């Protein structure tokens, strides 16, 4: 089969590799119909997530048709149409039983690596480095899915692949990001980052009763989509904008009740501190650029809740923890407990409360993946979400036009 492989920092190649096979009795093999590139894949592309190995198959947002099931799979059968959550959970351990699925005890073959770095290991993930298990990812034509009765959700309606694909990660991740900041009716919510997770966080915050949502980014197309979700947008690249002040002004001097960091470890900043972080990260003196966290610590109202769906990998520098303490804020974070959200969020799509396809800007074939990793990393104009058809080599016109998208 064809697969998108990480070959080193800033090096992505499509290779012909052997097809996956059943390894364990609860495995299923999925013939992938659609997959996507996630913003968090850029952390891998840029080499900031440790324990990648040359040849690793990337991709953790995918869906498809069940091709084959292992001897212990009871609920799925060949031909079922499924979306695969990006976290791998056994369904039986203390954490799974407590609905903390992304903290499953029993899915990571490399748990000892995570224990060395983090004390304990969370669940394994698809295509996301060996500290998270080293499972081959879904930017390929087939994938092996462990614990197939626990994770995949069957799609038994006629919704298009693209309508349900984002149940694999970004919609639940944005939703949990909003849910984790304990929104009370009428609360002001600030969202850093209007990439796909940020956009879903904005939409979800309104579903959960937010009063106003303020969205922070610098790219016009992302800010436009955020406004279409109902947010008031703040362009931090504007020289006159100071984020902490902007959020104070917009919230009657109080500060946002809830803050969501949908950016994570590779935050950008035009200030001197931003340059300092970039240099330190490049020199491996810090692993993450926590610029958003620094701003959020300052901007959030006293006693507010900060939710962090953005990915962090390691050691952070120059974090004003005194601000977080002094204002008595609450924090919630972590990989998404995917399995809690699949059914309810599928229903929200079926009920037409949201059409997740609104953010798709590009459709590509698998051979275009290396080129589009580069473009996505460079934030080429108009690029908001890339969907891959792994059975096409190239799609001649990959651009999904924004205006057409919304006239439908």
């Amino acid at each position, binding site marked *: *089969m064809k*697969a998108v*492989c990480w*070959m*080193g920092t800033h090096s992505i*190649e499509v*290779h012909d*590799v*052997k*097809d*996956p*096979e059943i*390894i*364990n*009795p*609860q495995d299923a093999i999925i013939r992938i119909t659609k997959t996507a590139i996630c913003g968090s894949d850029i952390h891998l592309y840029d080499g900031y997530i440790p*324990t990648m*190995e*040359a*040849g*690793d*198959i990337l991709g953790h947002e995918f869906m498809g048709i069940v091709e084959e099931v292992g*001897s*212990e799979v009871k609920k799925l059968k060949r031909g079922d149409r499924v979306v695969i959550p990006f976290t*791998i959970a*056994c*369904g*039986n*351990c*203390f954490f799974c*039983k407590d609905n903390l699925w992304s903290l499953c*005890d*029993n*899915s*990571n*073959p*490399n*748990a*000892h*690596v995570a224990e060395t770095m983090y004390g304990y290991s969370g669940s*394994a993930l698809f295509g996301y480095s*060996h500290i998270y*298990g*080293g*499972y*081959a990812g879904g930017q*390929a034509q087939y994938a*092996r899915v*462990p*614990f197939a009765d626990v994770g995949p959700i069957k799609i038994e309606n006629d919704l298009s692949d693209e309508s349900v694909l984002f149940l694999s990660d970004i919609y639940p991740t944005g939703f949990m990001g909003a849910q984790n900041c304990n929104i009370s009716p009428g609360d002001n919510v600030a969202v850093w980052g209007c990439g796909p997770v940020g956009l879903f966080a904005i939409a979800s915050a309104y579903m959960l009763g937010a009063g106003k949502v303020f969205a922070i980014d610098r790219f016009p197309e992302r800010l436009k989509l955020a406004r279409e979700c109902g947010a008031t947008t703040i362009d931090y690249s504007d020289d006159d904008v100071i984020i902490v002040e902007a959020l104070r002004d917009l919230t009657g001097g109080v500060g946002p009740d809830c803050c969501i960091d949908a950016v994570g470890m590779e935050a950008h900043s035009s200030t001197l501190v931003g340059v300092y972080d970039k240099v330190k990260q490049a020199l491996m003196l810090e692993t993450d650029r926590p610029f958003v966290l620094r701003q959020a610590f300052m901007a959030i109202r006293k006693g507010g809740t900060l939710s962090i769906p953005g990915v962090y990998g390691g050691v952070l520098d120059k974090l004003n923890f005194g601000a977080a303490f002094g204002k008595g804020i609450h924090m919630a974070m972590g990989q998404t407990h995917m399995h809690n959200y699949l059914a309810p969020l599928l229903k929200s799509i079926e009920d037409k409360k949201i059409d997740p396809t609104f953010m798709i800007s590009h459709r590509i074939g698998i051979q275009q993946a290396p080129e589009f990793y580069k473009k996505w990393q460079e934030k080429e104009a108009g690029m908001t979400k890339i969907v891959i058809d792994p059975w096409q080599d190239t799609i001649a016109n990959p651009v999904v036009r924004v205006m057409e998208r919304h006239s439908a």
Partner: protein
Amino acid sequence: MATEVIPTDASKLKSVAQIAEGTAYKPLPQKAEDGYVTAHAIQTIAADPQTLYTLWRNVEAFPRWQEYVVSVKELGAGKSHWVMGNPEDKDGTRVEFDSQIERDTPGERIGWKSVTKGVEQEGVVTFVPAENGRGTIVTLIQKQRVPGGAVGNAVAAVAKRGPKQIVIEDLRHFKEMVEAGEIPSVAGQPHGPRGVTGSVKEWMLGETNPTPPGSSEQR
């Protein structure tokens, strides 16, 4: 070799596992001295003590869940014959020895010791109900001779892991088999060309150790 290094006294181990109120924490034995390493692992496993005891006492099933066990034959009266090595490497190193169960309290503990001259290892596993209803606190303590070579430490002679990590992985695999019904593995999955650096990383992360097959029959 002094058996006393491993506290086979049940009351001592129970006090650690149950974290008795009003008592001082006493670390489990974990030391390297005189050519021996004593290491431990502890896990809370979602099953009752009797079930876990029965699974562990079935020594012939060890190859299903413990790394580097090729085969085990029960010889009766608590004695068993062990063949250690990489099961996937038919021509690889094999170390054979006999082991004797010395303390066997159904539902509570199993203590064993090698009885083959030159192979020096002993261990104890205890099963204590978790008071918070989360199953059973399983404590595994092993004392092994290091460096092993073909004699001395039969496990370290064939495994690509440190003696402490071996103990941790053994108990982890036991837990995974019991709770998940299988042992997670990525062995044999597809990947692009690894090249030199990729292969070195695989080895450094311990991914070249063979994963035991696990078994859903245990659920």
